[in-house]
C-alpha cells in the first residue's frame, strides 16, 4: 500500500490558496470544483452533481509542519 498521490493537486499553481472539491480521492483524485471559500467550492461541486466531494484547501506554499497546537486558557 502506498500513499495517496495528491502532488498534482498541491503542485498545481491554479489551485494555490484555493479550496478544491476532489472526487475519487482514493483511486485517481481529481478536482471537480474550486472556490475562494469552502462554501463556494462545495456549491459549485453540488451544481455539477457531486454531492459530497472531499474538500481541501491547497496552501499557497507547502511548509514543513511541526505544529501541535495547544489551547491556552
Amino acid at each position, binding site marked *: 500500500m*502506498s500513499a495517496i498521490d495528491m502532488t498534482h493537486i498541491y503542485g498545481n499553481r491554479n489551485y494555490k490558496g484555493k479550496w478544491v472539491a476532489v472526487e475519487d480521492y482514493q483511486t485517481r483524485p481529481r478536482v471537480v470544483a474550486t472556490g475562494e471559500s469552502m462554501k463556494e467550492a462545495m456549491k459549485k461541486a453540488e451544481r455539477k452533481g457531486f454531492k459530497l466531494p472531499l474538500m481541501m484547501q491547497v496552501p499557497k506554499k507547502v511548509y514543513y509542519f511541526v505544529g501541535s*497546537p495547544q489551547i491556552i486558557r
Partner: protein
Amino acid sequence: MIFRYFEVTPKIIRPIVPLILKSSTRVAFYSALIDSGADYCIFGLGVAEALDIKLKSQNKTKVSGVAKELIEGFLTNLEIRIGTVKYETKVIFADISDFGHGILGQQGFFDHFDVKLSYQKQTIEIEPVKFSN
C-alpha cells in the same frame, strides 16, 4: 479501519484521514491530519462558514503552536464521523488557512480511537475505543 497517508509533495507524506463533519444544517467531507501533540481537534474558519455554524464570542479561546504565536479560536460542539464511527465532540475553529487541513488532536480524536501509524507502509490504522460504563 485502514487509511493511506497523503503524499502532498514528493518529499512530504502526512497521516491525513477523511472525515464527515455535520452541523445541524449542513454536511461536509473534509480531511484532517492526525497530530498526537495537539490538545484538541482544530478546523479552519472556512469550515465553520461552509457548515453554517455561528461562532459565539463567549466561546473564544487562544491556541498556540511551536511558533508561540497565539491565534484566536472558538470552542464549538460538532458531529464527526470517521469510517463507521460517529460522535459529537468539542472542537476549535481557528484561522489555520496556511496549513490546508484540519487537525485531529487528543480530545475529540485520540480519546475515541487507538491509532497506529506506519510511515514505512504509509498506512494509518485506527480502532474505535470501547467505552466502559
